[in-house]
């Protein structure tokens, strides 16, 4: 496998020229990430956290990176689809092939003048490309350094041990250029939802994106990330994405994510640093991808911090959806709650590895984790690995994992009321998914989730 996976990395090396500019620190950062990625190569199923997720399909790919202004490449059909998707009551930030599409972005027509004025005042959005070149560069560097330092401190037994397990993240860093820096002023409550909508032109097959979010003390924001795959050209598209959340004390972030990539590949990292009295509530809907790997690292660094990390994975056909998370409770009196659900059809696979670490000093931690899977086919496979590592002695923590099939009593009850078998199955699956989807409390997001979920129910081999 090594020789073939190198071919993807080899093809990327040719694209590096376009990433040669910028300040020294940036060159150093990209250079180191690239060197590490090349030295390690892509992970294989011999590496612990990739045991069930083979990256073989990535091997066959020849990287073709995004051109400048890729939104100009959207077909009329794609542009119309994108327009229909936008939330008229939100600030929509559009990324095409990972590149920030200023021209398409902005507050929707239903955002009131008052809210729009508040957005301008309190929320600062900058194209990462510009930020890196201009005065914002130091701010980005400081944020990345801070994050690297916080991540370095992740407990060894729970972090990815082999260097290969960091290659995907390193590749995204080696091509750091496109994305956004979003800053919320101290004490500001952003009432307007911020939707980050990622779409693909279909021209590039390898895209990179990073969003850095700086939420100052006592600020509040709701962020939505939607990663929508276009119909894939031969071999599919691979999207690398990262979101870093730097939260201030007493701040609140609701982070809704939806990944619906169809036949494409999606690799992402979410990093969140949650200090004193801050609340980070995240919900990820991993609805389809040939391979999707969602890595989250939440570092709980201040007393009174509260974390919710919910996720749903729905897979059909030969899809592999992989959810990896670490919640690291570093200080006393913090709470976290995690519910992961997976719904599988056909020969698809769902991997869940949820690690919760309670450090020696983190007394009075309350951490609860649940993983529930529903198998709709005998050929589907769930690999759920909840891990709870507790060094403190005065904590309330629990975890559990269940794997089940559709409840035959519920099925019979519905059918005995005239509901056809397929519809009854869909209703029960919907109900299973709804627990996660509806906890978003966001009508636009739930509508989009419903639309994408319908593709899941209709897709695959039943």
């Amino acid at each position, binding site marked *: 496998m090594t020789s073939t996976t190198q071919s993807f990395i080899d093809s990327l090396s040719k694209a590096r020229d376009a990433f040669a500019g910028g300040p020294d620190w940036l060159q150093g950062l990209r250079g180191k990430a690239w060197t590490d990625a090349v030295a390690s190569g892509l992970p294989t199923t011999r590496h612990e956290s990739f045991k069930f997720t083979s990256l073989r399909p990535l091997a066959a790919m020849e990287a073709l990176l995004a051109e400048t202004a890729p939104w100009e490449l959207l077909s009329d059909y794609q542009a119309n689809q994108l327009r229909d998707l936008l939330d008229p009551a939100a600030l929509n930030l559009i990324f095409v092939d990972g590149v920030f599409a200023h021209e398409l972005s902005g507050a929707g027509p239903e955002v009131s003048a008052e809210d729009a004025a508040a957005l301008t005042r309190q929320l600062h959005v900058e194209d990462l490309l510009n930020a890196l070149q201009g005065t914002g560069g130091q701010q980005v560097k400081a944020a990345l350094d801070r994050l690297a330092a916080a991540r370095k401190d992740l407990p060894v037994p729970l972090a990815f041990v082999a260097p290969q397990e960091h290659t995907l993240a390193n590749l995204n860093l080696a091509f750091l250029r496109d994305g956004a820096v979003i800053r919320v002023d101290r004490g500001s409550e952003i009432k307007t939802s911020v939707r980050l909508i990622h779409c693909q032109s279909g021209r590039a097959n390898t895209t990179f994106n990073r969003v850095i979010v700086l939420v100052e003390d006592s600020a509040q924001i709701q962020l939505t990330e939607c990663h929508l795959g276009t119909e894939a050209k031969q071999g599919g598209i691979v999207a690398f994405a990262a979101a870093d959340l730097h939260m201030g004390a007493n701040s609140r972030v609701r982070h809704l994510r939806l990944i619906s990539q169809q036949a494409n590949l999606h690799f992402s990292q979410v990093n969140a640093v949650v200090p004193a009295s801050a609340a980070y509530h995240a919900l990820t809907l991993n609805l389809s991808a040939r391979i999707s790997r969602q890595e989250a690292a939440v570092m709980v660094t201040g007393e009174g911090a509260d974390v919710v990390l919910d996720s749903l994975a729905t897979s059909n056909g030969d899809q592999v959806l992989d959810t990896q998370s670490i919640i690291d409770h570093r200080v006393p009196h913090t709470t976290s709650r995690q519910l992961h659900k997976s719904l599988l059809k056909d020969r698809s696979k769902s991997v869940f590895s949820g690690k919760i670490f309670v450090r020696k000093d983190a007394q009075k931690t309350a951490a609860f984790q649940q993983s529930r899977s529903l198998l709709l086919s005998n050929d589907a496979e769930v690999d759920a690995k909840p891990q709870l590592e507790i060094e403190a002695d005065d904590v309330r923590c629990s975890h559990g994992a269940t794997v089940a099939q559709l409840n035959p009593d519920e099925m019979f009850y519905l*059918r005995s*009321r005239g509901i056809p078998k397929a519809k009854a199955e869909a209703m029960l699956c919907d109900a299973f998914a709804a627990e996660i989807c509806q906890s978003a409390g966001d009508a636009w997001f739930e509508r989009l989730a419903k639309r994408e979920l319908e593709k899941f129910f209709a897709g695959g081999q039943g």
Partner: protein
Amino acid sequence: MLKISDLKAKVADTEKEILRGLDLVVNEGEVHAIMGPNGSGKSTLSKILAGHPDYEVTGGTVNLDVNFRARNLLEMEPEERARNGVFLAYQYPVEIPGVSNAEFLRASFNAICKAQGADEMDPLEFDDFLKTKLKFLDMSESFINRAVNVDFSGGEKKRNEILQMAVLKPRLAILDETDSGLDVDSLRIVSEGVNKLRSKDNAIVLITHYQRILNHIVPDHVHVLYKGKIIKSGDKTLALEIEENGYDRIIREHNQA
């Protein structure tokens, strides 16, 4: 409307025979009560009529008149039976977390409309229709937005079954121990609901342990089921006799015969 002949059945995966040659004929407009001691096969009969996969029919026939023609009920899938007017009110209604009662009732109602070639109702239209049914059964509107049977009291679950019956207007309703676990007031409300749904075109098979519910829903025929067979049939006075003397004498007479 329903003709059961020499029906024999067992629990699937076991050899335990539960029904051992059961005969029953139910006509339009009739109410039949089936009584019998524990383990006589009462609930098994109701589940077999609804098509529950846990039971296997090993002999006999069950025919249901559909459009004036007898059709083999046992060959139909559970949903097909429902679409042809068969309704089972469960002894233990199933809880379905995450599915609202309104959504469930509408899916059910529309599936049956569709099968019968009638127009389906959109959510708003159905909501109005449902409200009239709730009113008809003196039930609170809060019922419809709750998840199906989840956190319902015993009485509420049974009322929810009757609500479904009111919405679906079955031709043949089988009420499986609808009276069990009901207090006096709930029993009266549920019975009144059933009585309002009686007509000359539909039939009700009432499975019960106790004569009590028969004071409210007066049967035309009463049958005693014992060891998988109907051993005695009569009018409503048979129920009163059982209430007074128990099943012992009837069983003794049957054994001597």
